[in-house]
């Protein structure tokens, strides 16, 4: 909404029309005119206007009828009725039909300016509201919010501060703030306000006058240019998620009652829109999980058929190679070549076996399983390898975890895969931390226990993190991995109605988190 507002003047009296036009043009508005209602309707249907200033009594079509037609074409347009013949009756009638306001002729130019400005402010506010609800991508939404809030509240700077997963505040978006020192001073103030709100409870608006003179913030540098700060806390179902901070830097330009009202409405709109965006995100996640599951199932069927087709010729290659090997003197090049072929066949066999275990569609054997015991059993299998690679295992098992309904063998396979991956990610040794957490509700209200495997390896680059569960995706050197380990894990977790997710930060290792229904 940074374009010049466009206003249509409708009056059958050319002199009045010209007078209004000139006055408004001097204020920088873009003006167009019409001399009766019908012309006005035609203009509105041909181009976009923000505001119409219209006489009531006009030839061909009167102002009130024209307003009805105009609102049908563009419901968001604001109309100010100007009338010289007006009684309170016509004024009330025009308001009922949807006029923003009315002015009596003759009127003072300043009176006109005030009404026009108010109407345009409302229009702008409506536009923002519309924008907020027309976007469901949260980043886009937040950008709109911050860009417009500075303008609407006539502020010098505004910023959106959100809390990250560890509840640390960070600046998501800012407007009017280039300098890092000033940015970090604002962030510090917001962080302290958020901390207080988290402890004392939600307040719709927090106002701070001259924060640099306030003893709560006196130790923060680069804050002296903020005269008046307004904070709009943002809530989601889970609690406080951040705030919008709007600052004015001129003395005397305190936030008025009107500004506060606007800001409160704004804050609640943003809260609502954030909820929408969040719901949409959840929907998208569910969808992508579904697509992934479909992909897996189709691939599984394909893999099953493919494996059978490949195993026959492969069996021939293996058998014939071994037959020829039997009659080839050891130490010859032919003997060496045949041994290499034999090894290659065994590698193929291993790949196909993992492929099939990933594709296996048969019934999972469900029984009550103790997760901690299953992890311990798995650790017995790989303890020696871990020791050899100088890998320390740290166990953080939650106390008295309930049993989960699961296939013991398959869970062991998942744990073994994750442990092996973690080991391979730390060729020079490191630590694997295995944690279990008691049940907590998932978004659908199911009680899920959590098991996580965290390593101190190189981590997984962000750009490939969402591909690690794809079949045949591997970062291991050729011949070292089949690229099926994590797909198998995903398949198993799907069969258990559980989830598996990966988080990683370059240089800080990776965490694989499993959630299983109790």
């Amino acid at each position, binding site marked *: 909404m940074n374009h010049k507002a466009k206003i249509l003047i409708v009056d059958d009296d050319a002199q009045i029309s010209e007078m209004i036009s000139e006055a408004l043009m001097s204020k920088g508005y873009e003006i167009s005119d019409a001399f009766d209602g019908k012309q006005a309707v035609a203009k509105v249907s041909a181009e976009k206007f923000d505001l119409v200033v219209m006489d009531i009594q006009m030839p061909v079509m009167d102002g009130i009828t024209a307003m009805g037609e105009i609102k049908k074409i563009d419901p968001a347009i604001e109309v100010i009725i100007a009338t010289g013949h007006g009684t309170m009756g016509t004024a009330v009638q025009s308001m009922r039909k949807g006029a923003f306001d009315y002015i009596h002729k003759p009127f003072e130019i300043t009176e006109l300016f005030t009404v026009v400005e108010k109407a345009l402010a409302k229009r702008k506010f409506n536009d923002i509201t519309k924008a907020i609800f027309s976007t469901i991508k949260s980043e886009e939404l937040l950008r709109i919010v911050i860009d417009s809030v500075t303008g609407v509240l006539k502020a010098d700077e505004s910023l959106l501060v959100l809390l990250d997963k560890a509840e640390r505040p960070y600046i998501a978006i800012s407007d009017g703030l280039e300098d890092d020192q000033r940015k970090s001073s604002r962030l510090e103030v917001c962080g302290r306000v958020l901390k207080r709100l988290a402890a004392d409870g939600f307040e719709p608006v927090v106002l701070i006058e001259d924060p640099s003179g306030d003893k709560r913030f006196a130790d923060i540098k680069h804050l002296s240019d903020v005269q008046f700060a307004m904070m709009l806390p943002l809530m989601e179902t889970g609690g406080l998620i951040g705030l919008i901070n709007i600052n004015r830097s001129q003395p005397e330009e305190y936030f008025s009652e009107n500004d506060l009202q606007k800001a409160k409405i704004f804050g609640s709109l943003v809260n609502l829109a954030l909820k929408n965006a969040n719901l949409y995100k959840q929907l998208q996640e569910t969808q992508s999980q579904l697509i992934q599951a479909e992909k897996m199932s189709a691939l599984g069927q394909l893999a*099953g058929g493919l*494996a*059978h*087709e*490949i*195993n*026959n*010729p*492969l*069996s*021939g*290659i*293996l*058998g*014939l190679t*071994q*037959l020829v090997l*039997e009659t080839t003197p050891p130490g010859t090049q032919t003997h060496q070549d045949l041994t290499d072929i*034999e090894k290659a*066949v065994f590698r*193929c*066999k291993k790949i196909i*076996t993992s492929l*099939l*275990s990933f594709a*296996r*569609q*048969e019934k999972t054997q469900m029984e009550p399983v103790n997760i901690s015991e299953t992890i311990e059993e798995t650790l017995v299998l790989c303890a020696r390898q871990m020791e050899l690679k100088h890998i320390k295992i740290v166990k953080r098992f939650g106390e008295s975890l309930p049993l989960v309904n699961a296939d013991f063998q398959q869970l062991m396979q998942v744990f073994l895969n994750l442990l092996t991956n973690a080991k391979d990610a730390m060729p020079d040794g490191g630590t694997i931390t295995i944690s279990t957490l008691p049940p907590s509700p998932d978004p659908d209200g199911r009680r899920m226990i959590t098991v996580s495997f965290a390593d101190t390896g190189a981590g997984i680059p962000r750009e490939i993190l969402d591909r690690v569960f794809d079949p045949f995706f591997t970062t291991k050197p050729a011949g070292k991995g089949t690229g099926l380990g994590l797909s198998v894990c995903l398949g198993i977790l799907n069969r258990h109605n559980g989830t598996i997710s990966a988080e990683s930060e370059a240089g800080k290792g990776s965490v694989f988190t499993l959630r299983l229904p109790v």
Partner: protein
Amino acid sequence: MPKKILVVDDEEIVRNYVKRALASRGYEIAEAVNGASAITAAEKEEFDAVICDLKMPDLRGEEVIKKLKVLRPAAKIIVITGSVSNIANPIATGVEVEGFLIKPFGIGELREMLEKVI
């Protein structure tokens, strides 16, 4: 008297190496390229063991094995299959077999398995 073995598989390359791996160990080998010819062969003569694929174009291996069991109850059956999920099948369908090998299998495994069952 050499032991007589029937090799049933529609894949020539598999029959080829199985036959040669066993013949070199003194077994007498007969071949069948599908289920029907396996049954015909078993009707004509006695076998000590039948090495039988499960997935063939005409009859399901399970059906073939059931008929062989009726025809030649003394013959030992070794299933060879390329599909892991098929392993459970003979047992699930009530067919008892003496051994099974998953393709790809080597000649060593094959010889060991056969020696074990007969």
